[in-house]
């Protein structure tokens, strides 16, 4: 053991670990500082807002990290799942809302948004399973050569079809709602927060917690993690890979759709609404390490804080430039993200 510790490869591995920890500390420290600066200089409203959006980026990123970790697919159509969720929620909620205007019903008014969000989640799940069965299953049967790059390009194609298909069928119009619940904003720390935001945050937290529980404490969840760690080993102990892959993809799509539906009051539904959430989700998973689900949860909040701070203190022109530079620096020092990535396929060409 001591002998290997002095070897050059071990030494460089230690340096890499130190570099990674250093970068992790800087990024986390930076985002905490950004949070404090926001609270002091721009008022707590900005801070609270970015925490709420952070919850949703976390939800998006967890789905992305899951798909990459289990299936090794760098999912570029994740934003389109968000878009589908937003559309479904809109088309379910609007008629319900209209109906409730003529027939007031207090209970149904409270429940209508949940019905819409639930419908969006279910549609997302089904859509994910269909995509997996229709596209990735045949590809997996054909060849696994160059899998990461090929599936990346295929998801680019899916994203292209879905955004343009949405334009084709639904037109480029914006479809949004002012809010889900007709409730006055709630005062918290002297800040008025819209009720919708609070619910969206609660949904994100509850979903992530439930998902964490599912992954760690149920038979199926453990099977998913087993596949992420070692596909052959998982198959040997009798795990049905096809089932796990479909389930994983369905769950990830459902989570993105859930995010899209919960944020309908912020992001109106239109064909390319998914681009920004996709960008942030990718940003998060690259920052924390591809496929690292636990890291993705924290990363969602870090990125939301840094994003708001950049907008607030540096200006809108550099809004996309600064994060890109930060990302390049992070990846130079910690090539597998600040929390590391232990996914088998990351270093495949």
């Amino acid at each position, binding site marked *: 053991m001591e002998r290997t510790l002095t070897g050059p490869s071990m030494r460089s591995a230690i340096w890499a670990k130190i570099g990674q920890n250093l970068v992790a500390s800087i990024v986390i420290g930076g985002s905490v500082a950004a949070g404090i600066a926001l609270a002091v200089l721009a008022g707590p409203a900005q801070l609270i807002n970015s925490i709420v959006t952070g919850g949703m980026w976390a939800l998006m990123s967890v789905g992305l990290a899951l798909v990459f970790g289990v299936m090794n697919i760098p999912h570029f159509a994740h934003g389109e799942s968000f878009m589908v969720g937003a559309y479904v929620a809109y088309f379910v909620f609007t008629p319900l809302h209209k109906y409730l205007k003529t027939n007031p019903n207090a209970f149904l008014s409270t429940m209508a948004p949940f019905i819409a969000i639930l419908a969006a989640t279910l549609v997302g799940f089904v859509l994910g399973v269909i995509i997996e069965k229709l596209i990735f299953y045949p590809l997996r049967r054909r060849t696994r050569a160059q899998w990461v*790059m090929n599936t*990346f390009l295929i998801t680019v*194609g899916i994203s*292209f*079809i879905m955004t*343009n298909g949405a334009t*084709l069928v639904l037109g480029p119009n914006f479809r949004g709602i002012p809010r889900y619940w007709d409730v006055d904003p709630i005062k918290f720390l002297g800040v008025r927060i819209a009720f919708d935001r609070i619910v969206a945050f609660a949904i994100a937290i509850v979903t992530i917690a439930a998902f964490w529980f599912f992954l760690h404490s149920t038979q199926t969840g453990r099977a998913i993690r087993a596949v992420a760690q070692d596909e052959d080993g998982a198959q040997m102990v009798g795990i049905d890979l096809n089932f796990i892959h479909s389930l994983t993809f369905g769950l990830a799509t459902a989570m993105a759709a859930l995010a899209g539906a919960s944020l309908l009051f912020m992001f109106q539904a239109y064909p390319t609404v998914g681009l920004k959430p996709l960008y942030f989700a*990718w940003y998060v998973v*690259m920052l924390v390490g591809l496929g690292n689900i636990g890291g993705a949860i924290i990363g969602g909040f870090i990125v939301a804080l840094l994003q708001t701070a950049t907008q607030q203190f540096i200006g809108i022109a550099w809004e996309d430039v600064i994060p890109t530079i930060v990302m390049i620096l992070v990846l130079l020092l910690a090539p597998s993200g600040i929390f590391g990535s232990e996914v088998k396929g990351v270093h495949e*060409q």
Partner: protein
Amino acid sequence: MGIQTNEGQGRKDFSGIWGSFVSALDKIGFSPLGLALLILVAVAPWIPPFNQEHIVRWLIGGAFLAAQAIAFDFTAGYINVVNFGFAAIVGLGAYTSAILANTSPFLIVRIGLPPWIGIFVGALVSGLLGLLLGMLTLRLRGIYAAVMAWFVGIALLGLARNLTPLTRGPLGLHPPTLLSTTSNRPYFYIIFTMMVVTYIVLRMVTKSHIGLAFKALGQNFDAARASGINPTKYRVLNFALSCLFAGWLGGFYAHYYGSLTPKTIMHTSKTVEVLAIAYIGGRGSLWGGVVTAFPFVFFIEYLRSELTELPGLHLVIYGVLMILIMIFYPDGLAGLYRWAVRKLRRDRPS
């Protein structure tokens, strides 16, 4: 365009006048069939029905897309790095040239550089960014490099949109055109020449020992590195060269269409168009994208003029074709051609 003859087909008979002609062609990366097709495209603007102005515009669009596909495939098909910010690099070249050519007093840069020089400055700027970006991100592997290029593309788009004193933001620039004529034909020959130059230069590179290193890195990264190829050096070289040509082509775009907005040139969907063309054509062939681009542009422009109430249909078709190719025929058109050549050779007793 040039159908390469140097790939895995050892038997070459270069005797007689025809033979020496073929061998001379082969040196610059053409086969007789490719040259014939190329000449056909070159004379097309004089042959009815292709001599109508709007169809010449389609031909220009085709050549522009084809040239971009060559530059894109040079990276994607050889070192296996998908430059997902390709459109933004094209846009950087276009914007550089357009900003330098500006004479309007409303913008802060008023140099009024002639577009003929500006195009090359734009190419240089794009190439330099490619070099810098490559040095920073190509140490990372596959997917990281692709996503980083995407981030950089988004950053460039954001800059073009928000640095209004320089670019007028979403309103866009109106750079001067290259020529004072209203005819499209001269422009066609400009972009046609640019396309051929792009092809010949990049083909010469891929045929040299550098190209061999590219291929080795693309096919098996670790094996190539183990046999002494410095991966970062060659990948950066390749990436910068591809970006250089991308910026050059962008300059043509700016000074042909005479209008430049961030979204029409730098958006990720533009990258996807080029990517789809290059992959349908066949990666690692360079010419595959050219053969695909012309029929595609005609088909799509036709769809667009016939079905005006269906916006975005052509993009859906791009996407569907791309997925089908990726799953069922990853070699694309070039692969089909190679297969046909092999088949013909085997069937013909020699």
